[in-house]
């Protein structure tokens, strides 16, 4: 990939499609935003690209496109994928439907589980059986294959997932079935579990394969429409693990893209923090609050990956950035329950009809988190979306009043209560990804983006004892920006299930097995990245192993070096950190070996902000409620700030798609890269 190229990153969201163009030759950025065409997102993607090329005055050459897509996510969440079938060992046809046999709501009078990704009538058993050690118990006969093919033909499926018992230990049967299907049912999308996810645990593996098979037909049709216009060579799709993949690879394994856009946001937060303070390794908790939900994620110099993730209730066990989502956002509805407690969410007004102040609610007003902000003077009616949409403060007041009356509180007290409850829900989400996993949030800065994040960031940080908040430049375009920075990625894994007897000196045979598996996977990945145009010197290989004490069932991901003794020491240290003890007397099992290849490209260099000439007078003062009273508050446009400018709270910083509240005891500093840094000074509180 040469450095003079034009790269465009496109992130489709539920409301907007965001685009960022980077011209490496001129080192310039251009941005664009348009409404998403939800019936067919490719329309707004293609239209946005055309408009942005024109806007940036780039000659109409085919640019490299990096794309964050919601097609797989939505197909899976809404259960509206293609017509897929699931094949597994006979006797286990219901694996997807039995799932883990538990129920999500403990006290539901009528318990239920979300529907399995593939209906029972398309889950077929194959006569064959492989044992746990890879030996064959019941051979797969040509007759058994023919029987399955016949049923698949009758079902007229578009896509097939095959996940046979113990296929990670011996893929022979799966491979034979796969070959037969591609020969006799050409055009049917094929997902083989030993290729997508050669890992032990039949339900998690099967569900991941089923998810892949379900979304594949939609994703393929979608990518086809984009490729027709953009060319398949130049299109890459953001994967959930924080790198991008070729469109061709995504057609085979679309399940890698279920957190496409959110992964871009996390990478964007991390890379802008790195640019802003190159000498400080970034330690961030990202906080992306939207209308209906909030995503949080912890980055200790790099994104935290998980291989035990899920989307909704469905396990998706390919590597994902560990993003925790809670159903609290600007549209979350406030209400009073039967016991007289004030509650916020989980129901939401979303973007349509939206909060009362959008003026689109019918009948009686429904109070939301956004309305609470409105009542407290934290949202400016004429500054929303750059002034393109006027908010109605009276509607918010009327909505909040419906709660203030029964509570016997003032409007402001009620609104403050709503915000405190929303904050505690989000603080709890942050504790899940930090405290519960052995991290102290006070060691991290809160990186805030998304439409509603800036309204909550400082108070939320305070409640967790965090003293630094970063609001990157372009907070509304951060996901797209992150894609420009992200590397190309290719992940491989393999279940080894080897035991390392004696922790100080592992036996040479086991050591050898690890080394050869690792070399094999490394080779595959390097060849793959090379074929995608990443020269060897730009490639980074990360190797890790999921280790556990023998008979434990939760593994800890541990980096693999050439020194196995060192790896075991790292594992013990991590175990102590996470769980408070080690067991030197126990053997360690290497469950899964993971190799991740990253193909780096020169990172974009962004234009710096001009230096501040003199501190500007705030353009306007408004009355805003903090804690227990209204205070005169400076109202500043972010675009008016220059590098080095500072602001002391109380102040409000507005920009196109978000509003940042700077409470008293907080100060803001603009850096050269255009990021806003906020610092808490609790000692200033009187």
């Amino acid at each position, binding site marked *: 990939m040469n450095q003079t190229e034009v790269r465009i990153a496109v992130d489709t969201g539920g409301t907007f499609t965001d685009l960022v163009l980077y011209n490496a030759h001129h080192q310039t950025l251009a941005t664009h935003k348009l409404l998403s065409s939800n019936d067919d997102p490719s329309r707004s993607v293609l239209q946005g690209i055309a408009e942005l090329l024109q806007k940036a005055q780039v000659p109409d050459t085919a640019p490299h496109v990096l794309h964050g897509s919601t097609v797989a996510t939505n197909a899976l969440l809404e259960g509206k994928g293609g017509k897929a079938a699931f094949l597994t060992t006979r*006797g*286990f*046809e*219901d*694996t997807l*439907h*039995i799932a*883990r*046999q*538990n*129920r999500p709501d*403990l*006290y*539901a*009078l*009528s*318990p*239920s*589980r979300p529907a399995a990704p593939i209906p*029972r009538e398309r889950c077929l058993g194959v006569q064959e059986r492989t*044992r*746990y050690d890879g030996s064959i118990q019941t051979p797969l006969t040509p007759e058994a294959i023919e029987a399955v093919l016949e049923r698949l033909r009758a079902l007229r499926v578009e896509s097939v997932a095959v996940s046979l*018992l*113990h296929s990670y230990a011996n893929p022979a049967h799966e491979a034979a079935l796969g070959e037969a299907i591609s020969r006799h049912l050409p055009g049917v999308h094929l997902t083989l579990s030993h290729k997508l996810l050669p890992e*032990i*645990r*039949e339900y998690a593996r099967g569900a991941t394969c089923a998810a892949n098979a379900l979304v594949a037909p939609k994703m393929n049709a979608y990518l086809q429409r984009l490729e027709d216009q953009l060319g398949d060579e130049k299109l890459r799709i953001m994967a959930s693990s924080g790198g991008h993949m070729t469109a061709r690879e995504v057609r085979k394994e679309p399940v890698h893209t279920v957190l496409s856009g959110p992964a871009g946001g996390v990478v964007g937060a991390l890379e802008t923090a790195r640019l802003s303070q190159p000498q400080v390794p970034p330690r961030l908790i990202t906080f992306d609050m939207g209308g209906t939900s909030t995503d949080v994620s912890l980055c200790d110099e790099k994104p935290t990956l998980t291989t035990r993730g899920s989307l909704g209730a469905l396990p998706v066990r390919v590597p994902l950035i560990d993003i925790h989502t809670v159903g609290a956002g600007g549209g979350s509805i406030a209400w*009073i*329950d*039967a*016991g*007289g*407690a*004030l*509650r*916020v969410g989980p129901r939401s007004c979303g973007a349509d009809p939206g909060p009362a102040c959008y003026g689109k609610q019918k009948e009686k007003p429904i109070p939301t988190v956004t309305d609470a902000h409105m009542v407290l003077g934290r949202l400016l009616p004429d500054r929303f979306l750059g002034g393109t949409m006027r908010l109605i403060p009276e509607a918010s007041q009327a909505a909040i009043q419906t709660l*203030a009356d029964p*509570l*016997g*509180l003032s409007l402001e*007290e*009620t609104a403050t*209560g709503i915000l*405190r*409850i929303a904050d*505690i829900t989000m603080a*709890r989400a942050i*504790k899940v990804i930090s405290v*519960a996993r052995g991290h102290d949030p006070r060691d991290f800065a809160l990186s805030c983006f998304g439409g509603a994040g800036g309204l909550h960031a400082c108070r939320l940080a305070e409640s967790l004892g965090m003293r630094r908040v970063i609001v990157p430049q372009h907070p509304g375009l951060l996901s797209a920006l992150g894609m420009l920075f992200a590397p190309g990625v290719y992940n491989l894994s393999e279940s080894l299930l080897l035991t390392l007897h004696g922790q100080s000196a592992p036996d040479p045979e086991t050591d050898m097995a690890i080394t050869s598996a690792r070399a094999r996977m490394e080779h595959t990945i390097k060849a793959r990245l090379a074929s995608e145009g990443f020269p060897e010197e730009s490639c980074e290989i990360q190797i890790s192993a999921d280790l556990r*004490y023998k*008979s*434990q*069932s*939760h593994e800890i991901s541990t980096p693999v070096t050439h020194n196995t003794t060192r790896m075991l020491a790292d594992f013990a240290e991590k175990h102590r950190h*996470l*769980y*408070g*003890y080690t*067991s030197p007397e*126990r053997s360690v099992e290497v469950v899964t070996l993971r190799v991740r290849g990253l193909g780096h490209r020169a990172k974009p260099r962004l234009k710096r902000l001009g230096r501040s000439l003199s501190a500007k007078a705030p353009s306007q003062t408004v009355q805003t409620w903090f804690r227990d009273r209204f205070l005169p508050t400076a109202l500043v446009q972010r675009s008016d700030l220059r590098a080095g400018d500072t602001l002391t709270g109380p102040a409000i910083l507005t920009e196109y798609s978000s509003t940042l509240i700077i409470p008293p005891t907080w100060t803001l500093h603009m850096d050269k890269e255009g990021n806003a840094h906020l610092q808490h000074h609790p000692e200033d509180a009187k």
Partner: protein
Amino acid sequence: MTENQGLLAIELEIFKHLFASIAEEMGERLMRSAYSPNIKERRDFSCALFDASGEMIAQAAHIPVHLGSTPMSVSAAMKAFPAETLSPKDLIVLNDPYQGGTHLPDITLIAPCFLPGEKTPRFFVANRAHHADVGGISPGSLPLSTHIDKEGLRISPMRLTEETFTWICDASRTPEERRGDLRAQIAAAHLGTRRLRSLCEDYGPKTVSLRASQLQDYAERVMRAIIRDIPDGSYIFEDALDNDGQGSTEVPLHCTLVVSEEKATLDLRKCAPQVQGPLNAVRAISCSAVSYALRCLAPSELPSNGGTMRPVEVLTTPGTLADAVWPAPVAAGNVETSQRLVDLVLGALSKALPERIPAASCGSMNNITIGGTDPRTQQPFAYYETIAGGAGASPESPGASAIHTHMTNTLNTPVETLEHAYPFQVSAYRIRSGSGGAGHHRGGEGVERTYRFEAHAEVTLITERRTRSPYGLQGGEDGARGLNLHNGKPIPGKVSLEVMPGDLVSINTPGGGGWGAADDEP
């Protein structure tokens, strides 16, 4: 001066989250650091916080059978060790069913939480985990016994010390696993007390205690409102256990529900006298079953605390199936009779609320324990699993299939990991088609899980609803009874057997009852 009720409405919600997140974090820690698949994979544990008087403040939603019974563990610990005798370093451990426990595999650990400068604990935290083996006459410690002493090590409330720790672990067939699991319980308890102390630093001890008691009052208010909506009256429901595994069959179960305004009384005094087999439930389990059934009528986010049971009275007679006394064996009271007691209480409720209560669910946890020596390693092994069944159909919807209902919610052990760990295979694991009861809404289907043995082993099954079907309601048909097979031949619902290589044992779990008369075919 009384606090402004409007502001209290806000504080309640905030503290509900604060307490619940501590209980949940304890659970996460326990699950992640435990050793045994039973805790880590199946998640058979729970964690809770208590106030100084031993009333529950919050419980992480894990296993309902622990819900109403853990408070009794805390009371027993407090009785054995009065507050002024406790020190911050103390940990109290117990599993004695007659002193705060339920059945022997469930070991409860309780830690007092002291604040600086205070002489008695301001809070307690407790966690309970199902240990895969605590000794006794059969591996897995869920034997078909006739005396509590045959079921394993009985731990009356005692301080956990180096010596007691070793004593407990050494009583197990798998002592090393016990050490790992108990250490995880200790770590979780310490985490809980640490978090409570830091909560008190942030908000002040008085405020934290006040909010805890206000949350209990709040849950009580919600529960009173729910009971108020049940028509006043007296409702009787009768059923019977299949058998006690030791020769008694059709063991009578009887419940009278009396609702009067905001108060409910559940009278279980007419249940059969305690039986020779291990189906006896101690009072803690009966309270748990009642508490669970009523809790299901409340909104799902209601905090689980001591307030919910204040308007509820549970009447039992010592020496009966619902209030067993020494030396009754109790291994299956917790896992089987508890399910049947829920059916009983819901049955009585269905007479008061016919348009709300669903038909009977599977009514069994379908327990299987397998033990022996693994020929591959010459090491002893003990495996325990519960198997889901069908849920009862409700007025709104058909019953869910292959789902754990009522008092348990443990996960299955993945077949692939099981086959690595033990010398047997699962040769089929599928939905048992046709087992749900017909009706306007069909009951959910049960499950078939078939094991194929590769080595000599001892298998114990403790299963219910093999002779009495899960009831349908309002004209819906009963769900299919469960069926256990050994090499294709029916075997009793409760049985211990020796199996040989090549043998098959198949458990076919009951379906749920149907709701409403089946619609006529057009």
